[in-house]
């Protein structure tokens, strides 16, 4: 990943226009997760920052959040003509496109409202409709037996795959029409009003509401919760099974494949993780990795309101304005751990098949994936060698980006990482109101 | 203003029209000027490669003359070819 360019203060170099931007939102609507969010435990005290500490933990229900999300999406549509929104809902084990409606669906509400911009109205009513439909389907599934599906984690991989396919479909490839959008073709300086349309820029925003890692567990504790049941129905090992937070077999690989595809297509994956630290002390490391690898923005809500402001402040600027000129919040420490293919444990030290690069938690004579045989003699040696490897401590934070010269440093406490993320976007965050406080809509 | 030829600080003022052009056009102007005599000369001062100073009353005439001169030197394709 290229480091962000050095801060440039020359406002003349700011972009005059940006290409239209397509925002793909993946909304985790897993019912269990939202029930947790709607009755949060008291917030963890936050003594470094009294203004934030004063704010109470805010219960967040899905309807409340969707209202905020709609305002944010409207702001995205408002910020440029030609901006578009695509929304996927990810529920237990399945994902569905909520907006735009399929082409054969009835076209929106019959009548425009006099005080709403029509595209906003279409979007909002369709999201509401889509969510209700999806909730009804879930209800249906529950009533027809299949209680187990509720315990499946949200289908992030499915939603991500759909989103990437969507992007692939809307972006013109190397065809005749691609020549039309070739930016090089429009560089003719004598053609100020060249009508070759700009290639839209795309980004994915994952809104995670499920505590624990999405894929297996991400805790540093040794209690790993494995997939409850393999696809072929066999229990993987004798560990205590806990379905929640687990993932279907292949989920890790699927997620990582999506991430690498997104990375290659230069689609940033932004991640907003809703479960506050009081519910879930450990961040969802694989989503964090996704954001890190694709140069997206990762941020975890502190559970104290202010979501609307955070959405606007962190996630609204399109990729073409990020880094230059807008500051992006620095990432918290990213754990680059992987999951083994055999037991779905999160590993610090793994053993990799030299042929197919599969990861295992212990040396194996035969690779489970590609069936390559390894000399059995080498196994004890590998095991001994592995004990010499020191566990690499996961740093609390990544080194902070260069602080603008002369900027206030007194409030940027070393271990105060969340505050730093905010400080970078909001500047001096010590104002009396504090950005962490809930913001009322008047 | 100039107080005697010995004065190192004397200044000479002239009013007229300053012409800025490319050096090719300038050469044509010089040529036009050299074809004229006495009061009909329009050039006051040859300043440098791209500037000259001329008399105000000749400006429009000079523009037309230059245009004609340029027109003579332009190749016009025979439409029948």
């Amino acid at each position, binding site marked *: 990943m290229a480091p962000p360019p050095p801060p440039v203060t020359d406002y003349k170099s700011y972009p005059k226009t940006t290409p239209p931007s397509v925002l793909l939102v993946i909304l985790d609507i897993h019912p269990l997760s939202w029930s947790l969010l709607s009755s949060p435990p008291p917030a963890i005290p936050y003594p470094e920052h009294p203004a934030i500490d004063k704010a109470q933990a805010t219960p967040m229900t899905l309807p409340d959040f969707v209202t905020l999300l709609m305002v944010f999406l409207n702001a995205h549509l408002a910020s440029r003509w030609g901006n578009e929104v695509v929304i996927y809902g990810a529920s237990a084990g399945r994902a569905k496109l909520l907006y735009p409606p399929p082409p054969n669906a009835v076209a929106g509400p019959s009548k425009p409202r006099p005080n709403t911009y029509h595209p*906003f109205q279409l979007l909002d009513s369709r999201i509401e409709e889509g969510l209700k439909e999806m909730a009804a389907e879930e209800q249906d599934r529950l009533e027809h037996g299949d209680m187990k599906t509720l315990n499946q984690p949200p289908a992030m991989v499915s939603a991500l795959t759909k989103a990437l396919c969507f992007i692939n479909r809307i972006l013109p490839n190397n065809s005749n029409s691609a020549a039309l959008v070739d930016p090089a073709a429009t560089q003719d300086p004598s053609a100020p009003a060249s009508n070759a349309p700009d290639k839209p820029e795309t980004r994915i925003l994952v809104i995670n509401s499920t505590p624990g890692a999405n894929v297996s567990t991400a805790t540093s504790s040794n209690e790993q919760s494995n997939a409850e049941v393999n696809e072929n129905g066999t229990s993987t090992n004798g560990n205590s099974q806990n379905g929640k937070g687990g993932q279907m077999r292949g989920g890790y690989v699927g997620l990582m494949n999506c991430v690498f595809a997104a990375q290659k297509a230069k689609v940033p994956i932004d991640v907003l993780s809703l479960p506050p630290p009081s519910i879930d002390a450990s961040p969802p490391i694989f989503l964090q990795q996704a954001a890190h690898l694709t140069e997206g923005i990762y941020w975890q809500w502190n559970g104290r309101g202010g979501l609307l402001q955070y959405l606007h402040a962190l996630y609204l600027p399109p990729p073409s304005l990020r880094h230059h000129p807008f500051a992006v919040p620095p990432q918290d420490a990213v754990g680059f751990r992987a999951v083994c293919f055999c037991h779905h444990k999160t590993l610090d030290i793994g053993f990799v098949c030299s042929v197919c690069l599969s990861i295992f938690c212990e040396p194996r004579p035969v690779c489970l994936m590609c069936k390559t045989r390894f000399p059995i003699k080498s196994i004890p040696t590998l095991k001994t060698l592995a004990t010499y490897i020191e566990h690499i401590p996961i740093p609390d934070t990544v080194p902070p980006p260069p602080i603008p010269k002369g900027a206030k440093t007194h409030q940027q406490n070393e271990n105060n990482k969340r505050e730093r993320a905010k400080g970078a976007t909001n500047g001096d965050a010590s104002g009396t109101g504090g950005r962490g406080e809930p913001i009322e809509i008047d | 203003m100039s107080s005697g030829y010995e004065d190192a600080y004397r200044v000479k003022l002239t009013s007229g029209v300053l012409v800025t052009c490319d050096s090719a056009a300038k050469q044509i102007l010089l040529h036009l000027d050299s074809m004229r005599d006495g009061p009909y000369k329009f050039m006051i001062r040859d300043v440098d490669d791209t500037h000259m100073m001329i008399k105000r009353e000749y400006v429009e005439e000079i523009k037309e003359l230059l245009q004609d001169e340029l027109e003579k030197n332009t190749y016009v394709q025979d439409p029948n070819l």
Partner: protein
Amino acid sequence: MVQPSFSHPRSDPSSSSTSTSPTAALDTFLDNQHQSYFEELYKSEAVCLCILRSLPPVCRHIILHNLWSHQPLRTIDIKSLLQMDIQVSLQDVDEVMRPAINRKILHPLLNKKSKMIYPSNDAFKKGLRNALTGLGTSNSFGVPFDREDDADIPDQQALETYGEDAFEGILKYMVSSGLGVGFPVARPQMEVLELLLISGLMVDPSDPSGQNPNLNRMTITSKGFQFLLEDRQTQLWEILMYYLTAKEANSERSAVVLSMFFSLGCMQLGQDYSASRSFPGALSALNDLAQYGFIYRPAPESDQFFPTHLATALCSGDAAATRGQDADEKRFLILETNYKIYAYTSNELEIAILNLFVDIRIRYPNLVVGKLDRKNVKSAMEKGISANQIISYLSSHAHPQMYNSPPPLLHPTIVDQLHLWDRERNRLKTEDTVMLEFFSKELFEDTEKEAKANAALQLSIPNQKFLFIEPQTKAAITEFVKERQTQLRSGF
């Protein structure tokens, strides 16, 4: 220094005027308005939305960033957002926010600790919030017309054709007056003709004083020719601004009408609206807009109206978007390096415009073949059309096929040649001057400095000790020279 690089006309200051945004006319108009005018405008949510979109992206996102905050924006916030050095001067921060300040969205002021803060305009903030949440009450996005469900309504295609015909009719009338080429044109209505006269796009040549013009005998002016070559959205905004300045001198009324323009721009093509309930304050202006094809009314006195694509595309702020589906229709020109032009069109208006600077040789039902030649281009330039306008017309109408060859789109030979022809017209730049000949280097340098400081200097030739100054500053400069002379002489 007198021969700039033709291939990069952007470095040429003269071209900057042609590469402006489609809403240039609107921007200039708004730049000259006062606080109270904006207060009036920002009562409408549609205006807030459109004004927000017209800001440059950086500025726009800073406004959105701060939209839901209780605190006014502070300089330090902007600096840290934009990763600016803390030492950066206030002017630079101001410069970034300049567009928003000009639109009276932000009011920079010093707070108690003499730090700069940027409180936002309450009306704007409220309007924009309401636009996003849909909680406004001004009906600025248009009240739909109550009609029976089975009523016969025109489809989008029909509306587009209607709008296009109405507006092109006016343009055709303008072209035909200038060319004398015979194609049948309907004379636009009297109000339209009046506006064309007031705006200076057309004049009555037999009435040079402009006292008593005959509206039926007008011909197009050089301003009118330039207008024809603009892209559609620019033309629309120019016409609207002429209308606004001509008809609505009263600033309160003018704000109401302008906010109606923005509302129209936010409406939905194919939807019908109620005129009396949407724009109670601007009914007559709405009627006038019908003459330009902005709206369609099924019956002349009906309350029901349909905005056409001309209206709904007003606020898209995106040249490509206005064309929308008919983009391909507008891309009909193939220009070869041998100056031959093939235009795949049968649109009378486009052919007439081409005829301004192209020598048309062959006409087929759907194809026109012609040649860019010196004679025609120069005659177009006599009419006041510049090389940059021709070039931007050619490139914005270029056939998709032309994008297949390696860039640049138009061959540099042709672009350069057009610029050369343009420059040929005025190879001489003349300006009145007073020449000062010096004999003392010291005096020369002092005077040069003085002249430069007073913006009186036209040219200075140090090795010959010539100074050329603006004639109107002659008195002041001679005064200075005399003073210096005395000083220098007494120095001995």
